[in-house]
């Protein structure tokens, strides 16, 4: 039977993960693709999945009545997309729209959480990596607020 394990192992977020853990995560994973302009998720929707981007580019947007969609950031190849799944009430707080043809691995978050609960080694490894993603995003966000080119 074909498995997604090699594809998972090739993504920077999961690289170096033990194969039994990759096997667990592969049970929660599926391959998805989005055409340019297609919404990956929309503000207010229930967050059921998070994504590891393999190719392409996705814009994170906030929609305003007066200015329309404002792009806050873009994510691309090798990036993690969607943190809202981790905290209750598990709803997306912004829009994500594919800019280019985008291929990603979608993870059913309740399945991932179940595996993390059942095997705390996997849970710890997963959360360590997730913390890096969060810390990096916060660092970038702070810089964006500073207006580095005007400073």
């Amino acid at each position, binding site marked *: 039977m074909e498995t997604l394990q090699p594809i998972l192992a090739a993504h920077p977020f999961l690289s170096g993960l033990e194969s039994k853990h990759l096997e667990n995560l592969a049970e929660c994973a599926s391959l998805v693709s989005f055409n340019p302009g297609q919404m990956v998720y929309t503000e207010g929707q229930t967050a059921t999945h998070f994504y590891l981007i393999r190719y392409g*580019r996705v*814009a994170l947007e906030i929609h305003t009545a007066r200015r*329309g*969609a*404002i*792009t*806050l*950031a*873009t994510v*691309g*190849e*090798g990036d993690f997309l969607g943190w809202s799944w981790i905290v209750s009430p598990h709803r997306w707080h912004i829009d994500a729209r594919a*800019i*280019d043809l985008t291929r990603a691995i979608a993870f059913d978050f309740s399945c991932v959480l179940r595996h993390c609960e059942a095997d705390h080694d996997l849970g710890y490894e997963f959360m360590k990596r997730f913390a890096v993603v969060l810390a*990096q995003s916060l*660092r*970038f966000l702070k*810089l*964006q607020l*500073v*207006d*580095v*080119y*005007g*400073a």
Partner: protein
Amino acid sequence: MVPNAPVPRPHPANPAVPMLTQPFQIRRVRQETPDTFTLALQPAWGAAPFCFLPGQFNMLYAFGVGEVPISISGDPANTQTLVHTIRAVGTVTRAIQKLKPGQVLGVRGPFGSHWPVAEAAGHDMVIVVGGLGLAPLRPAIYQILAHRAEYGNFELIVGARTPGDLLYYKELEQWRGRFDFRVHVAVDSAGPEWRNNVGVVTTLIPRARFDPWHTTALVCGPGVMMRFTVQELLQRGIKPENIYVSMERNMQCGIGLCGHCQLGPYFICKDGPVFAFDQIEKWFALREI
């Protein structure tokens, strides 16, 4: 395979008569962004070819107003035309902005150290620029592209506040179409018509492909941007001695006499403006006095 030879430090170049201003005539002016323009200059009296190394600067004199240090942003292989990209921020740069083709300004130089482009042959090259920082690095890009086969991967990472603030837009588009190096562009904010990256320039560094142990990085931009860029590059494993930055301070003489541009033990005009990061790490984050 090319051995990983240590990259020598750049040396300052001393023009023959450093205090003498030469008249140069403006041949062309191109508006890059609302406040930034590029001048193409030629010696007013058909003087000798102008040779410089990427990263060096000239002191440009607006007659009767004053003199400012401005990096050379043209192709070092073209010794007939001198190119400068200038942002009009104050007295002298605004006076230069008012000059028209055919008018003359004074040029003293070239001064200062250079980007170690020739010295980095055999390495992967990563260039990270923010805003006006592309101007002093454009000569280095020309030189690398002219000797492309001598380098490994070449990644150019460009950041700006908005798409309208990107320098050399057409040239960036042409570079993006080439197969022999990768150009990444990110802006802090943009409308929906922008189909590229949004985010600070440092977000692109994790995506660049290079072998950190055999990579030379050249960085230029505003102080905050350079500090965070260097952190990201170090985090990716590039050695501090292989990361080069260009520093700015107010200048007067441009040749190490007046002390105006001192940074720790260095005079930026003569020991810099290009420094290896390990050389100036201690003074890098110092706030300008």
